[in-house]
């Protein structure tokens, strides 16, 4: 089965991004497809490479980046939600005249259309949120 996943709460504060990761990993390991994960609301904060959790804790961003690398999962961060919260890739930083970017490997910033498209193209859309 083809699953689309939405993450709509921020990392560490809320379990949503952990549960979504565990679900995606289990689905992929059991032969299902997870073509895309869409990060919305505070969920966009999963995609910053500047977070530094304590070493004896999981690193949520790195977990997702590794999963994306292994299974070719498209990790999409909503551009409108990202701009409000200071999540930028190199192109957006340049376009907005900002002096830095912070997007992590395996993530990309794109529009809400990617969420709708994911809903159309997958068999099930599952939201991990509050």
């Amino acid at each position: 089965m083809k699953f689309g996943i939405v993450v709509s709460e921020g990392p560490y504060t809320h379990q949503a991004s952990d549960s979504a990761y565990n679900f995606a990993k289990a689905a992929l390991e059991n032969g299902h497809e997870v073509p895309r994960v869409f990060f919305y609301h505070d969920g966009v904060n999963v995609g910053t490479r500047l977070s530094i959790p304590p070493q004896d804790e999981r690193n949520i961003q790195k977990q997702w980046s590794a999963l994306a690398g292994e299974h070719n999962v498209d990790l999409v961060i909503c551009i409108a939600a990202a701009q409000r919260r200071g999540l930028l890739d190199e192109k957006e930083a340049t376009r907005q005249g900002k002096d830095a970017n912070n997007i992590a490997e395996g993530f990309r910033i794109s529009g809400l259309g990617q969420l709708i498209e994911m809903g159309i193209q997958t068999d099930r859309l599952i939201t991990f949120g509050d």
Partner: protein
Amino acid sequence: MEDNIKKFLYVNRKAPYGTIYALEALEVVLIGAAFDQDVSLAFLDDGVFQLVKGQNTDGIGVKNFSPTFRALGDYEVTKFYVEKESLEERGLTADDLQEIMYEDEDDDYAEKPSIRLVNRAEMADMMAEQDVVLSF
């Protein structure tokens, strides 16, 4: 994409201000309208407050986005399911909600109300018919 139309439901369960969920849900609805899907909105729990008329946000420094709901008819978003029990539990009636109309192109562009009051059981039945449910 025309041959792949799905039933999309946006579930609005939170008050319009205090958190960003309602505003960012509306942003998804607006973008989603360009995809020519079969769209419905549900308002339940505190989400019914999103449709209350006469909203004034001057005191909290946040944009009042409630007029945008009245524009959704132009994007063919014309099905607003509002749960009766949620209204009643909050001391609200249909008269407290803003008037949201759309022009029915299949009926000589007659103006019709977008808001449909449903009870909890009817809301559940409507949800069960959907292909994609996005909850906010």
